[in-house]
């Protein structure tokens, strides 16, 4: 449920490091807590995001949650597919349900994130 090759934030985002870039999505735990995702609001390519700050929102029928950037940098790609089919976030949170790709301005920020074990621990403790 929490792939070992990803880094995790306390706000329930994951990031997959791909060179100087990071692919970002929400975790299995986050999608399960939200329930059926009905809408996702994402930034545009070219927008700057800052670690720990909101870059968009994700909505279920009866709730809405902010999405927080795990690292700072420029948004270089946005998953158009997930905007049209938000159910991908529920079905495949670590695959086709990814949200954005960030060109990291400070890869050192990755050190502030958790590995899969630490994240799983955090989720268990609630």
């Amino acid at each position, binding site marked *: 449920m929490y792939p070992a090759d990803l880094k995790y934030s306390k706000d329930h985002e994951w990031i997959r490091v791909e060179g100087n870039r990071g692919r970002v999505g929400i975790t299995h735990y986050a999608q399960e807590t939200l329930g059926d995702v009905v*809408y996702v609001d994402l930034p545009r390519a070219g927008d700057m995001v800052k670690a720990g700050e909101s870059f968009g929102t994700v909505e279920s*029928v009866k709730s809405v949650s902010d999405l927080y950037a795990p690292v700072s940098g420029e948004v270089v790609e946005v998953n158009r597919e997930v905007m049209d089919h938000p159910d991908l976030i529920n079905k495949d949170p670590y695959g086709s349900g990814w949200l954005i790709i960030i060109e990291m301005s400070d890869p050192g920020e990755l050190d502030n994130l958790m590995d899969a074990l630490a994240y799983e621990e955090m989720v268990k403790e609630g």
Partner: protein
Amino acid sequence: MIKNPWNEKLIFELGAPGRQAFSLPASDVPEVDLDWPENMRREKAPGLPEVSEPELVRHFTALSRLNHGVDTDFYPLGSCTMKYNPKVDEALAALPGFAGIHPYLPEELVQGALQLIYEMEAYLAEISGMDRVTMQPAAGAHGELTGILLVRAYHRCRGENRTRILVPDSAHGTNPATAAMAGYQVVSVPSDQRGGVDVAALEKLLDERVAGLMLTNPNTLGLFDENIHIIADMVHKVGGLLYYDGANTNAIMGYTRPGNMGFDVVHFNLHKTFATPHGGGGPGAGPVGVKKDLVPFLPVPLVDFDGKRYYFNYDLPHSIGKVRSFYGNFGVVVKAYAYIRSLGAEGLKQVSRDAVLNANYLMAHLKKYFYLPYDRFCKHEFVISGKWQKERNGVKTLDMAKRLLDYGFHPPTIYFPLIVEEAMMIEPTETESKETLDRFIDAMIRIAREAEEEPEKIKGAPYTTYIGRLDEVAAARKPELRWRAGK
């Protein structure tokens, strides 16, 4: 409810081209060519229904039969005060002398309407302990916005630019939304063990940045905050003001008043406390009362009396302006006025007594079967939780709410306030008989038993309604918000 009273057809799917339900006279003036530019003329007629009057009447009558109203059966929707709506009030508001008057009539032709507004203001001021009241806001949330703009104007007039509004974590969503609309930063105040404002936490949040605290008392848990006078002193001490959300006024009439509790601004929900119908979502009315320091900022116009005649007073140089066109939902004000005149002081106090007695009676019976997070006497409503059923049987509050439909009741407000998990907020009101309350208790006990014995049955409810559970996820993912031919 009779099964399937409706053929599922929308009005657009009825009738035939050329059918009509209107009747208009022929023109009695010489026909002229209108001097309108060609590009302002409509080419294609709007796609409106073409039906005869009998079809029209059958259609909307069928739709009405799919609804549950207060006149149908018990409607214990917490925080909404679904009390009986007196029929005479409807008839009175429809009198031509009220319904047929234009807002720009000269004052000498609306003396009766102005007198009614003037007297209503006095009644509401007396009930709330405020100095003046505006009738302009059209609903509770609109009253909140008006009230918070008054708070803002008050501070600015004193040269202060305060930036924060405090809101308890148990508050109605309209409170934080309102404060944000008025340009304020919203700061949440936690609740304490007894369900009231956490006074120690409040103390830490209070400073000269705080414009005011918005509070409902009794709060959304139906509990009276016993520290209200202490809270009021604390907020006033840092120069802040106290805003009273009047949603729960039905619990306290004649016992205490927002003014006595230390509040500076209040809004009323005439459609809750004063028995005007909710109309399937509106219209309501949200008059706002203030203490005298805030009077100069009230919206224009106020209605005044010079000893001989009633008149509109626009002479308020510090007014926040207008929050709505004209003078508010006057037709709703007429109904609430009639209600207050029907009950008088003792009647209103008895309303609160019976509303509180009914709520405590239900709570006393239900707390054996459902988790009660705050076990103390409530006021006009109380909050129980479906957490036992969820933990033991996997049955959620939503499921039990849907099952109540099969017993013929409107469910309570669910999943609110947010601080109680699996919340069910129950407000019986004073207009329900003991027999009705007993029927409801009975249904709730049966549902608690079903949760133990047949949880799957509850999860599939409702079974007896015209329509089953609807796919809200599909509705939100691919919004279909209007009818189209051929779909």
